[in-house]
């Protein structure tokens, strides 16, 4: 093998960089997300599992339907009508951005740009 030393050093550096997230977080002082749903209502517009995995898709679909197709019909769950809107619909029940949205988004390190333009409703617990 040519340049044994160089190759091995390079490989070692590569492995360290690739595994960086694992040993960086290995300290164990990990904070697990615990989003709070601040409402007495039992049912969301979709089943819990779907909302957990695909709420972003639902929001994008609502957005396109409302903005592009002008379809502002409301979603009815248990006789309650909800607007198909993040600000005026979702946040009606999930009143706190910090305790609901940010909890998981921070954990997974994602930064949706919803609130760059839309207004966060006044937080009242």
């Amino acid at each position, binding site marked *: 093998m040519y340049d044994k030393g160089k190759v091995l050093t390079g490989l070692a550096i590569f492995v360290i960089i690739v595994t960086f997230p694992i040993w960086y977080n290995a300290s164990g002082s990990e904070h697990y997300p615990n989003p709070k749903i601040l409402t007495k209502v039992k049912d969301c517009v979709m089943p819990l599992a779907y909302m957990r995995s695909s709420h972003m898709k639902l929001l994008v679909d609502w*957005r*396109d339907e409302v*903005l*592009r*197709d*002008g379809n*502002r019909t409301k979603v009815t769950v248990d006789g309650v009508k909800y607007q198909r809107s993040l*600000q005026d619909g979702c946040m009606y029940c999930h009143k706190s951005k910090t305790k609901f949205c940010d909890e998981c988004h921070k954990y997974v390190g994602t930064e949706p*740009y919803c609130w*760059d*333009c*839309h*207004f966060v*409703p006044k937080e009242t617990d």
Partner: protein
Amino acid sequence: MDVKRRKFLKIAGLSAVAGLAAPSAFNLLLNKGEALATEGRSGAKSEAHGEKSGETSRQYGMVIDLERLQRSPGLAEKCIHACNTEHNIPQYNNPKDEIKWIWLDDYRHSFPEHSQYKKNTALAKLPVVLLCNHCAHPPCVRACPTKATFKNSDGVVMMDYHRCIGCRFCMAACPYGARSFNWRRPREKDANGKYKFFPDGVNPEFPMRMRGVVEKCNFCAKRTLAGRLPACVEACGDSKALVFGDINDPKSEISQVLKAKYTIQRKPAAGTEPSVFYII
């Protein structure tokens, strides 16, 4: 023989694929073009998920009576202010960053294609309310590479701020200077936590925009869907200086006004068929 057969099969297969794919691709193009070309004459069509509406579809429009606006001083400013606060239009106070949806200019510059030769100089100075024309054949919609700007089923030229990539092709395409770009972040706050560019406060019901997207008048699409009048029209009260409605509906108030009065449009030679009309 095998070699020949293979070759034949290859050629046959390729031509089949080409034969199937080419016409459909071609049709797609043709239909797009045709739809664009006939859009205005047969009424508006939605550019949103590709569905087309028939002849009966709406085309919202506006008649702006400059004489009535002249008669009540301050009314135009009131309309503009109503829009600015409704839609959170930032006030940068410099022409480089400026954003405007509805604004005032004089007749000479609003209708530069109209000759001022030997004409009454008072006319040149007449204030004119300007806004997006919501054209029947909008060049901006034609230019947009992502359909971020599109015509909705009410004939309104809409902006999808979530999709806009900020290429500003629509700004080059618009013959009316109706489009503004967010050269910077409008939501900046000062040291006291106050919004820097919204001296009159903000309307939490309507989103702001992010830097790097184009924006313009949306004929208050959110309000009209809820059965309300656009903010500028509402601000005019009963003055009838601004009349709003469906210009494709012969029974609408605006159609009656258009039938009764002589109106002009900005730059008709551009072939865009503007939906905003002026009574001088």
